């Protein structure tokens, strides 16, 4: 279990994390979803003791990371955002080293190395230097190094950045397997699709603050049972916002000179009225997309910007 209470981390005048509170339970994948610079990696750094929180409390399986740093670090497996493996060593030697760094040795170490090689699908390439691996294989080895000591808490900091689709699927399966085995998984990402498909619960982070948290269903509920309409064209944002807001069941989520994003109850039935209002407001529509509500819509609703900005 990971307990984070009122975590604040300040670098000079800048708050990288401001009053974050969440709890990740054993057997669940808890996601931190947010754009780059939102404070996700800072939060991971504070949990694994690399950074000292300015205020607040962080505990891993009940061990306070400040006062019981060694005990908490022994429970953790960390998959960093960048590769952190020895490329001149083989997969086996990498796993042996990281297993040994947690005190594993002898037969236990050998058994775990073999198991992890099997899990990450590198059994047949176990003796090759990692520098000969593809990017996806290196990512899997990077993941395996965090698993070799069978940690009870796993921190994954954007582990799929720059990974090909096939390897990404394999990595996400590995994460699910860990959660199914009872491991507490904290997963940071800025990929909405990953968060939706993987995480049991989520916290949406922006500018170091949690703007919403809950299960996927709970978060979707925040935007309501509404379709999301995305319109591309030429708009006068203020005028369009004023005119469209007068139509019942329509909420303007985002409006600028070239794009509109609307949350609409029963969008199909309201399309004629919407286009009539847009025409009256002097807008030109070139493209229309209608989707079900998702995390991206919620993120835009909560922060006023897209997740990838």
């Amino acid at each position, binding site marked *: 279990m990971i307990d984070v209470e009122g975590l604040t981390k300040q670098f000079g005048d800048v708050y990288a994390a401001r009053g974050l509170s969440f709890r990740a339970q054993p057997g669940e994948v808890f996601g931190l979803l947010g754009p780059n610079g939102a404070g996700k990696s800072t939060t991971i*750094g504070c949990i*694994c*003791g*690399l*950074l000292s929180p300015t205020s607040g409390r962080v505990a891993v399986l009940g061990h306070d990371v400040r006062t019981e740093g*060694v005990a908490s*670090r*022994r429970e*953790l*497996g*960390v998959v*960093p955002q*960048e*590769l*952190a*493996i*020895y*490329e*001149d*060593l083989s997969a086996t*030697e990498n796993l*042996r*080293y*990281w297993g*040994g*760094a*947690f*005190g594993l*040795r002898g037969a236990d170490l050998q058994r775990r190395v073999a198991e992890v090689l099997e899990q990450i699908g590198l059994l047949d390439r176990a003796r090759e*230097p990692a520098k000969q691996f593809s990017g996806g294989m290196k990512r899997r080895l990077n993941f395996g*190094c*965090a698993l070799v000591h069978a*940690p009870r808490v796993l*921190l994954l900091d954007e582990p799929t950045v720059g990974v090909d689709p096939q390897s990404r699927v394999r990595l996400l399966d590995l994460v699910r397997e860990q959660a199914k085995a009872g491991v507490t998984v904290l997963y940071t990402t800025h990929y909405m699709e990953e968060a939706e498909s993987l995480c049991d619960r989520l916290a949406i982070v922006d500018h170091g603050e949690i703007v919403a948290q809950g299960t996927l269903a709970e978060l979707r509920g925040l935007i309501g049972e509404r379709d999301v309409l995305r319109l591309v064209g030429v708009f006068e944002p203020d005028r369009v916002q004023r005119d469209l807001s007068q139509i019942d069941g329509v909420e303007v989520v985002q409006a600028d000179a070239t794009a509109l994003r609307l949350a609409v109850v029963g969008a199909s039935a309201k399309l004629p009225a919407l286009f009539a209002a847009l025409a009256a407001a002097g807008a030109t529509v070139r493209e229309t997309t209608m989707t079900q509500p998702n995390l991206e819509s919620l993120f835009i609703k909560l922060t006023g910007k897209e997740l990838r900005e």
Partner: protein
Amino acid sequence: MIWSLLTGVVRKDLLRAWSDPAGLLITLCIPLAIGGLMTMATGGSDGPTPKARLLVVDEDDSIVSQFLVGALGRGEGGGVIDAELVEPAVGRSRIDAGEASALLLIPAGFGRALLDETPSELQLLTNPAQRILPGILQETLEMGVDAAFYLQRVVGPQLRTLRDAISSDDAQVAAFPEAEVARLSIEMRRAIQRVESYLFPPAIELSVEAAPTAANEAAPKPSYGLLFFPGVVLMALFFAAQNQSEDLWRERRLGTLRRAMSASALSARSLLFGKVLAGVVVLGGLVAVVLALGAAYHRLPLAVLPAAWLWATVAGGVLLLLMMLVQLHASSQRGAAILSSALVFPLLMVGGSFFAFEAMPSWMASIGRYTPNGWALERLKDILLQRSDAAALAVALGVAGLVGGVLLLVCARAMRRFATR
């Protein structure tokens, strides 16, 4: 548990070092190539002591000038000075071509001027391409001139009479009465007797004795190449230590230091200690190879090798910590490379690795002997030349252990900040 963690770090670093044999080979080859070339340039293991070639143009051709030239080639100076009389034009062209250490011009009338106590001047043109040998020539010449001056003070009148007699025409020489010769001889003898109580023996005598031992008998007679050899060993150690210490930045770039600090049972101190141990193992292997090659080439007695290996390996460990200290406090890998090179090359230069202390000006050698590598070099030289005993080695190891311990503590303090910043 701690031992298990340490062995893991050591094993990993040794495997990584072994996976890059070219790096190890280059580290070994550079100092061996430099050392080998310098040893060959100075005559190899059996090479003679370097001699100063002095060209002399004697335009005076007097008894005094002949005495001076003769004195330069005898006594203590005779071992290192090879004087050769040449014609003025030949002397000029040969010194211009760099074929000698110096050219001495004795002007006509020098002998007369000396005996008459009138001003005269000797000219010494030195070869700017050489530094040590012209200096030896200059000092020896100054001693010769001083000797001639004191000879003139003691028996000057008698010498002047003799000179006048010899330089006169044959008729007058023939007329030089035997009684006059006898008088001059007696006067010179009395003059010398007056001062001989101060000269023979000298009023102050320095006695240096070395007890003859079996070890001394077996000790290798140091050629220039052998005197230079410990410098080669220290050069190899310094380069290897620099290369090993750079692994801190390689690991930082790989992200493995940060990973170890974020989730493992490894502390910054144990991680550093493991890396130092692995480095010392690599340095020990390097020292073994260099010593084996040196022992074969210089025909060193096998008995000195274990102590030499132990000392050089321990000294290498201290140099490694010194280099790590630089790496840990640099703000970037590039900065660390510049900083460590700026430290290594002057230390190698002054510390006896590029030039043996014996070939340095004494002021520079006395500074160099107190540099870390210079101090280690002197201890190694003592071991190789069998001028050291077990007690001296134990003291040296104790000092090195103390310095290494302090450096280890300072490095450990910087390690965590380095890994996580």
